[in-house]
């Protein structure tokens, strides 16, 4: 039987996580605008607060207070619904990603993820796929040509790249022989080899570099970020699926995009970069503190969460970094890359991984 304690703790964890995700969005807006400006020899927003850090909040306030205009020609119900349909899966997906290793308090295990589901990574893949409904619904309900084109592009792109992403994950599952995320991270804590006292851990990208490249590319296609932002395609189809949306509805789409990015970064870190495994130097620092008992456990949790957030932060920055470096693909190029290169490569990778496992390499 599930105790009250478990319910309350889960609720608390969910609230903290949603708060965290919502807080990331204005921060990422600021980093996106300021970072892009720096890459283009500009200054970027620097008026609000020190270094302009309140720009994201100002943007949010502006979007909230804008008139919530609904065009005449839209399907009213789906038009209102679609931003939230888009936002919800992106918020749900993060629930299974662990922030730190579980600790024991009075005989009860406290996990640092909202839900330690048995289906683990499959849940993530299932929910991420739902994200396309928000985009599709928004594009269709807008009842305009550009929005429809954006929605069509988005759905075909998401379906194409989900296949390769799934196959990349499959090869990781074969290596880890676990489907839940916490044992996967624990697996990555093992030593791959040791050279001159430096231990190299079994992080996923070292075990499966091809799977990492495929997964990494597919996350960009899944989150509709450059170089795969054809559903938006400002210069071709204006803003694609969220063309007709304004004020808070548009903000919800933005929120969905950024929380999707966060989830993608979290998954990349969990699957390929050792999840909450400590960064080099951090474990040495943790042991040199000389703590023991519960204090040690809590400090360890803090260290692991910090390591996880640093890694996720790096991948969030990579999203911005790549966006302002690479130009957008043409749509036929996207399809070519998805079906002619990524999919065969992912299949081949699964095959080779199976051979290597049979040969006892992993």
């Amino acid at each position, binding site marked *: 039987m599930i105790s009250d304690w478990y319910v309350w703790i889960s609720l608390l964890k969910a609230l903290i996580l949603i708060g965290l995700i919502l807080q990331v969005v204005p921060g990422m807006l600021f980093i996106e605008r300021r970072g892009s400006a720096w890459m283009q020899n500009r200054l970027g927003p620097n008026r609000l607060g020190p270094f302009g850090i309140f720009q994201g909040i100002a943007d949010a306030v502006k979007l909230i207070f804008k008139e919530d205009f609904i065009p005449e020609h839209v399907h009213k119900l789906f038009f209102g619904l679609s931003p939230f349909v888009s936002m919800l899966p992106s918020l749900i997906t993060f629930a299974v990603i662990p922030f730190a290793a579980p600790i024991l308090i009075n005989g009860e295990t406290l996990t640092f993820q909202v839900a330690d589901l048995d289906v683990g990574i499959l849940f993530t893949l299932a929910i991420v796929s739902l994200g396309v409904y928000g985009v599709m619904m928004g594009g269709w309900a807008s009842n305009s040509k550009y929005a429809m084109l954006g929605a069509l592009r988005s759905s075909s792109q998401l379906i194409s790249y989900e296949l390769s992403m799934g196959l990349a994950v499959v090869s990781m599952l074969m290596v880890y022989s676990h489907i839940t995320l916490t044992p996967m991270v624990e697996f990555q804590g093992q030593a791959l080899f040791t050279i001159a006292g430096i231990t190299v851990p079994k992080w996923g990208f070292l075990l499966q570099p091809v799977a990492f490249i495929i997964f990494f590319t597919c996350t960009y296609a899944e989150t509709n970020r450059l170089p795969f932002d054809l559903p938006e395609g400002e210069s071709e189809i204006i803003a694609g699926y969220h063309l007709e949306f304004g004020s808070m509805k548009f903000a919800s789409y933005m929120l969905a995009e950024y929380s999707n990015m966060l989830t993608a970064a979290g998954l990349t870190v969990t699957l390929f970069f050792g999840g909450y495994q400590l960064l080099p130097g951090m474990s040495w620092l943790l042991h040199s503190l000389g703590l023991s008992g519960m204090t040690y456990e809590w400090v360890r949790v803090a260290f692991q969460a910090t390591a996880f957030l640093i890694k996720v932060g790096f991948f969030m920055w990579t999203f911005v*970094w790549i966006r302002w*470096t690479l130009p957008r693909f043409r749509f036929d190029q996207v399809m070519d890359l998805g079906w002619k290169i990524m999919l065969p490569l992912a299949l081949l990778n699964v095959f080779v991984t199976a051979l290597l496992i049979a040969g006892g390499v992993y």
Partner: protein
Amino acid sequence: MRVKQQKPLLQRFYWAEILTGLWITMKKVILHRTVTYEYPEKRRQYSERFRGQHYIKSVQGVENCTACMLCPTVCPALCIHIEAGERNNKEKYPAKFDIDILRCIFCGMCEEACPEDAIKLSNIYEMATPTRDIYNKQFLDIQRGKDKKGHIPKLKGKGVQPQRPDFPEAGLKEGAVNPWAVGDTRQREV
């Protein structure tokens, strides 16, 4: 015709080129340098010979212009209109001196043609107005871009100090103190 491009091996491998591009953008972030100016606060340092807003130079409150009509003659944009008048001491002076600033191309030929060093171009470049202005004589008589000693102001810091241009509609009030005036422009005998 379709030409098959044969690129070098490293360029055909997309990932290498991506990494090169990423390094370029990261370099920009690390060695952050801007080519833009925070305009109203920092200004570009232009040459002292910059050709900006016009003014008619005056000495001891009397304008140098003798209405010789050389500048409207030389003006390629035909934007200067002068009507000559005569003072009590038989000296010729411009009774009317209009510059249609929308037509002006800031070539500076009026300044070059002027034998009396009367029409000058200052280094003020903020001339945008919501109206289609024609600069009249009252406006042109303001001694622009010079301090009280008749020198072009010494510039401190990174850029030019803010100089608020005074537009006609901003209210060139009778008796207004002009920071760039040389001599007393208010008590001019006409």
